[in-house]
């Protein structure tokens, strides 16, 4: 089977988010970039499939040269080939279109993406790819089994889970639960050495109109000073529930 894992390169979850150039640009100073957590669960899941049936696993990212360390990490973890589409990602539809173009030229059976990236949170890329390529799509996946040409996925829904099945080719949106965090694969020395021999393909893009543009960023309003309540005076808290939060 041929598997493609879509990788977004995002600030580490502990990052403090700041902006520069009159709040038009994300300040990457001091930021450590990582594989988007929702994608990382999918990458490990893909590695497990590869261990079972000798599938090939490629990884793909839309980004400039600065995302290559992340792609090399995916090779060190065990991906066979990495593809970088050489364009700064600024629009979810555009990213999905570029990845779709690559997929339609390279025939993958299973595409694994994340539910969303934790930086721009567009929740667009896998769904748009599925529609452009007219393939099945299941997102919020917290479990995935493959049997021949059929996949069975556990999807988190509000208040529970559902089991969905469909035929390949398909694309899924993964999240925590697809594999456990303690199962995430990390590169070992042998993997890092092998990664140096593995292909990293760079694809150039043609200019096209991009449908959206971020013109300004804002940080949330500074929190007002917290009001402390004495632990012996819980009536005050009950009153806050009643008067301020209006929930009782």
């Amino acid at each position, binding site marked *: 089977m041929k598997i493609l894992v879509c990788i977004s390169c995002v*600030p580490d*979850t*502990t990052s*403090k*988010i700041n*902006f520069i150039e009159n709040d038009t640009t*994300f300040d990457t100073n001091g930021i450590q970039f990582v594989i988007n*957590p929702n994608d990382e669960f999918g990458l490990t899941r893909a590695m497990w499939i590869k261990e079972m049936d000798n599938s090939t696993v490629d990884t793909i990212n839309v980004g400039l040269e600065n995302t290559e360390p992340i792609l090399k990490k995916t090779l060190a973890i065990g991906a066979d080939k990495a593809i970088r589409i050489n364009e700064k990602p600024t629009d*979810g539809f555009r990213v*999905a279109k570029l990845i779709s173009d690559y997929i339609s030229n390279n025939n993958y059976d299973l595409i694994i993406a994340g539910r969303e990236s*934790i*930086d*721009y*949170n567009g*929740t*667009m890329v896998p*769904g*748009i790819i*599925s*529609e452009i390529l007219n393939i*099945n*799509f*299941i*997102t*919020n996946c*917290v479990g995935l089994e493959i049997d021949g040409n059929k996949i069975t996925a556990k999807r*988190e*829904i*509000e*208040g*529970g889970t*559902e*089991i*969905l*099945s469909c*035929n390949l080719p398909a694309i899924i949106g993964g999240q*925590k639960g697809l594999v456990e*965090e303690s199962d995430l694969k990390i590169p070992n020395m042998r993997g890092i050495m092998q990664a140096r021999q593995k292909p990293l393909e760079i694809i150039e893009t043609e200019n096209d109109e991009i*449908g*959206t*543009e*971020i*013109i300004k*960023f*804002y*940080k*949330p309003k500074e*929190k007002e000073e*917290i*009001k*402390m309540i004495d*632990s012996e005076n*819980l009536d005050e*808290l009950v009153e*806050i*529930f*009643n008067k301020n*939060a209006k*929930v*009782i």
Partner: protein
Amino acid sequence: MSVLTYIESKDYKAKKNSFEVISYARALADQLSTDLVILCFNIKNINELSNYGPDKILNINNDELSQFNVQKYAEAISKASSKLSVSHIIIGGSTDCKYLAPSLSVKTNSTYISNVVSLPSSLTPFTLRRSTFSNKAFSDVIIKNEKIIIGICNNSFGLIEKKSSPEILNLEINIPESTINQESIELSSGSISIADADIVVSAGRGLKGPENWGMIEELAKILGAATACSKPVSDMGWRPHSEHVGQTGKPVATNLYIAIGISGAIQHLAGVSSSKVKVVINSDPDAPFFKAADYGIIGDAFDIVPKLNEKLKSFKAVNN
């Protein structure tokens, strides 16, 4: 060109967050000086929808739509919007809406913008503010396409009541077969889901072990709240993953968020930052959560929570 809002239903009734979605859509239709059409599936009593000002309602009664299916739902909404010549589609921020919106955007040649927190600040260029960086920031985005799907964040706009006498539309829409099958569904019975809750009671490692959640569940029951937890608690298996709140878990935008024994890692604080009133109970006065909350109590949860439960019970007994 009209504004269309698709609202979700459950057990043949509009879901609670629908009224906020309709309120937003009405305000947008006013801003654009156009009509607002509500689209819904299999709702028994559509009268309550007219409290928020629609000009028209299209309620499609079709057994094919009795259960959410991304392909059938996206197709039905897409067909309805093309028959009604719709320019703007407004949807909520639920898991299902976020699942179908990208497909819908391609089918309708629209641009989809998720996590929107306000009405457009300008119509030319069309500019929306959305939440980004997992609630750590907001951004203003210009959309060049004239056809737009706006997914709004829960609890970001509020309700605006405006009684209307909508025209009831009838439209025949063919629903295609789906290539994705639902094999089974498992709903946790009795409890309120985090997405549906007005109040969330959340607890962390400070509770020392899963056996101590009884008082948290009791507090949630008294308040009619959903229960949630911090990441370490779900990682250790004390509580299910579905309760994990934060950057890699679920975001929470409720009226009241109560954090008990949660120190407040930056990822957790980001996930709950959109909640209106945040209350923290923690024995450590240096817990970072105290800097991000509205009200705080320093003290032992094992002492405070049972006492609070008793006080809330007597308050409710007197006042309800």
